[in-house]
């Protein structure tokens, strides 16, 4: 047995190189994906119908010379491959170009909007994951019970509801102040103009956050519930639970100490993977609640079409997924001792 110990320690060097290779491989995959996303984004939006210059100048008298000047200013007179090279060079410096409609650097617009989106998506995911995982644990542990069936039914229904519709209903019932209910929550936006002071602003933003987050949670938590429930079901018959029961543990302890830590692993990965998708998924909720985030920006950019903005946002949304995938790959081995070695 002592021999095993020395062998174990001699293994560390080999293990370290294996870990490095693993991490390197994941990083490389992520970088390749990112590059592919950038290329796609550039060419996809070049097919957008409509002349960007005309879109930029709607409602104003512009001479042909001025149009040509605009074209030159935005680099639209260059051949496509030149534009592509400029675009790539810009991306490398986090320079996404000038927005056609706002006439400010796209990076500034994104920097402004990313906070609200992260706040909304983060809070929503956190709450949804907590509710979904908790209910999923219970449903899976007591599967077939009345509680399980009720939970599953409600989750499946909410899962089928379009998020924007639910958001609209929330606004009608809880924000518009129609009927007997007063308007409890703001109908949109993220802050009331004129509110000052850290505490007041926090409360105000929190107040604005309630309905969008509620909408998001209602639509998203079902996924977590179903995942957690099925991974609990995978564990319920496991031998180590019989061992735990044989030791004399209460059912609640068998659940908490043994079943949940095992069942949680796949769910955590999925939560990470979803986190990336959620950033793009909030487009609708942001649109419905006029939340000043990336989703609203994307939507407004599509109407113009504001090429640099939309391209950049597409890259941001896709990178969110890529980065979260990468994180999930890197974090999972830390959580699961079986993969760690």
């Amino acid at each position: 047995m002592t021999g095993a110990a020395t062998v174990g320690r001699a293994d560390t060097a080999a293990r370290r190189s294996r870990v490095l290779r693993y991490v390197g491989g994941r990083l490389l995959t992520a970088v390749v994906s990112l590059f592919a996303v950038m290329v796609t984004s550039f060419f996809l939006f070049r097919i957008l119908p409509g002349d960007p210059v005309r879109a930029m100048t709607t409602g104003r008298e512009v001479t042909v010379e001025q149009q040509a000047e605009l074209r030159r200013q935005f680099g639209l007179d260059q051949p496509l491959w030149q534009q592509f090279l400029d675009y790539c060079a810009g991306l490398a410096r986090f320079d996404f170009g000038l927005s056609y409609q706002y006439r400010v650097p796209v990076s500034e617009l994104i920097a402004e909007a990313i906070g609200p989106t992260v706040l909304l998506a983060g809070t929503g995911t956190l709450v949804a994951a907590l509710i979904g995982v908790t209910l999923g644990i219970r449903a899976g542990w007591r599967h077939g019970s009345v509680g399980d069936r009720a939970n599953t039914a409600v989750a499946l229904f909410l899962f089928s509801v379009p998020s924007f519709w639910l958001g609209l209903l929330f606004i009608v019932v809880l924000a518009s102040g129609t009927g007997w209910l007063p308007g409890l929550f703001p109908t949109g936006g993220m802050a009331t103009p004129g509110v000052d002071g850290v505490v007041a602003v926090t409360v105000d933003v929190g107040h604005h956050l309630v309905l969008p987050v509620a909408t998001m949670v209602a639509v998203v938590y079902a996924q977590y519930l179903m995942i957690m429930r099925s991974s609990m079901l995978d564990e319920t018959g496991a031998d180590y639970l019989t061992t735990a029961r044989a030791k004399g543990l209460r059912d609640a302890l068998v659940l908490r100490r043994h079943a949940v830590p095992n069942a949680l692993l796949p769910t955590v990965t999925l939560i990470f993977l979803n986190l990336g998708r959620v950033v793009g998924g909030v487009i609708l909720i942001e649109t419905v609640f006029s939340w000043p985030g990336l989703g609203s920006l994307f939507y407004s950019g599509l109407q113009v079409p504001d090429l640099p903005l939309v391209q950049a946002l597409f890259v941001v949304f896709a990178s969110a997924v890529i980065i979260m995938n990468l994180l999930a790959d890197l974090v999972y081995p830390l959580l699961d001792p079986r993969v760690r070695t």
Partner: protein
Amino acid sequence: MNYLEVEDLRVSYHTPEGEVPAVRGVGFGLAAGSKLGLAGESGCGKSTVALALLRLLPRSAGIRGRILLDGEDVLTMRWGRLRAVRWAGASIVFQGAMHSLNAVRRVGHQIAEPIRLHGSVPRDRVPQRVGELLDQVGLPGWRARSYPHELSGGQRQRVMIAMALACEPRLVIADEPTTALDVMIQAQILRLLDRLVGEHDISMLMISHDLSVLSGSCDRLAVMYAGRVVEEGPAHAVVTDARHPYAAALGSAFPTVGDPASRRAPHGLPGDPPDPADLPSGCAFRPRCAVVEDRCAAIDPVLWPVDSDSAGSAGRSAACVRVLDSAAPEDTGAPDGAETATTRVADPDTTLPTQESGAQY
């Protein structure tokens, strides 16, 4: 008094297709410090018996009968008392320790868990106790910080044994303790188990499909077939001179070391174990029996003492009509017609000797 006393244990599983009997009236006793082996093919109900002893069967299982552990009936215990008895009164060494240990917890934590729970030693002494236990099973103390997957199969089984001894129980149930291991490790583990059980004066119920494993470690053997004990007696006698054709077949399936005859002509058993949901009439072993007779279709024999004047048959019993014949030809009489036999079978407790009476020792 026996530390463990099982009387007419019956277990059936509720399935959509109806009740499926897994254990159909098993009885045995286990004196303090003695070792009983329970043998049989997979699916004969032996593991169900093991789990039933601590009421660990799933909710779909219905259990009847009596399981007296130190005089207390496990089946009627309240939950709190049952939890106190689990592990402290009787612990289990499970089969295939890979799945029986929690993969995401360190083994030290898993060994310490029942000690903390049952308060076997003061809290501050728990780590020390874990170290002692690991030492007893021949593992270095630093292994407490390992995860199950970092251990070999034999080491995991050692951890399982250390865990089973953690609360100093008076009974250890070893359910296929060596099945997943290779032969060399098997022998090591069996020796270890033997030694520890002997040192601490613990009773042991060892369950295996491998008669040779059991005969080496156990004082007595019980052979199960289709949810019943079909032969029971001193280990050596059951292995070398089985009275039930199934026990005989099981014994000859493993060649005796140093006996060239058994190696040259291994006696396998044709056919598969019966489907518990669809047992044949009469003797359940009938379809596979080499010496089957016409009357076997009508009589469902129960354990009956083996004729005591033949050598080495003290305290032995078997469930075969041929044993019934030789034991008490005048009293019971060989059933001469299917008619009478069936009526007798309908109520075996009154007409024929019961399981318990045959299995006391």
